[in-house]
């Protein structure tokens, strides 16, 4: 039995903003676009074989989450320890945002994806569960554990992050 699937262009039109928002929060502005391309190209390859088309946004965010994990692994592999960190212009919104989102990116993958889905994408816990391929309860726990870690972190960043 074949599943009713909209033209792939409809997925691009309807969900590009959500996928980009998710990836900016997950990997930062500089690499979000590359991960966005990888996400949709993978999705396009797999689309004819997709069996459950009931929540295409969650499906795309699941793929985006995997691309974000690949990206973080790749960066960890490429990272070379240096004595002095060169000063770099930061391209994100404000300094406060940067610290906070850097802290989000440092969370374990599941917590990171959960926090990003909740706050960057404004998803309900049930849909976050679909994205993370876990239960609604587990999704809720991941969001709260992520927030707790961020709060613990924020006491060290206190001055800059939380005014």
């Amino acid at each position, binding site marked *: 039995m074949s599943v009713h699937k909209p*033209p792939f262009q409809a997925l691009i039109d309807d969900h*590009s903003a959500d996928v980009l928002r998710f990836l900016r929060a997950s990997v930062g502005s500089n690499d979000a676009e590359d991960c966005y391309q990888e996400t949709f190209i993978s999705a396009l390859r797999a689309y004819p074989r997709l069996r459950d088309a009931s929540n295409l946004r969650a499906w795309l965010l699941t793929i985006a989450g995997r691309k974000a994990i690949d990206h973080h692994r790749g960066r960890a592999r490429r990272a070379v320890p240096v004595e002095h960190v060169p000063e770099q212009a930061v391209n994100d919104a404000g300094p406060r*945002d940067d610290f906070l989102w850097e802290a989000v990116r440092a969370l374990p993958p599941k917590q990171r994806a959960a926090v990003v889905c909740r*706050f960057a994408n404004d998803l309900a816990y049930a849909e976050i569960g679909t994205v993370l391929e876990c239960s609604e309860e587990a999704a809720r726990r991941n969001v709260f554990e992520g927030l707790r870690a961020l709060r613990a972190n924020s006491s060290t960043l206190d001055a800059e992050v939380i005014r």
Partner: protein
Amino acid sequence: MTHEEMDIESALRSRAISGDEVAAAARRLARRAEAEGLVDVAYSDVDTPVGNLVVASTRRGLVRVSFGPEPRDRVLEELAEDVSPRMIESPGRLDDVRRQLDDYFEGRRNEFDLTLDWQLSRGFSRRVLEQTYRIPFGEVSTYREMAAAAGSPRGARAAGNALGGNPIPIVVPCHRVLHSGGGIGGYGGGLDRKRFLLRLEGAMKS
């Protein structure tokens, strides 16, 4: 909830993304999908004197032209179901089709030089449409003649149905097929369009 918790959450929420950035990323994606050979159906809109047409091509050729009466979204959904859901809006791949349609409507072209993908028609319908494709510009034929040419001399009514379901109107000129008695017959896009096309081709007096 403490003040500090609210602050973290509101800071997390305050991220805007502009429509232009999204559109630019989507355009690059369409080009890359095309370059990697992942687009089974490319489609575009073409503005013409008979209204907005949706035109779609597979790798084999032009597969669909539609000016209604079905809504545009329905046409695209049917293509996704009948051909492939790997569909991307890609005006570039339809440039040649658009140019030839422009030329036709401006009187600079009498014949289309396009490769067609006939996969949406089968059996008798397909044979009727292939015969229809051979009716020259400026001439007309009848449902009965098309039925006979397709191998079924008494199938005029079935030929009419086949032409009514023509997936590639204008290019496969079903507007050139009339009633044997001299009546204009029917047209999927409406009789006004049929008359317009016949006048454009000089097959009908204004």
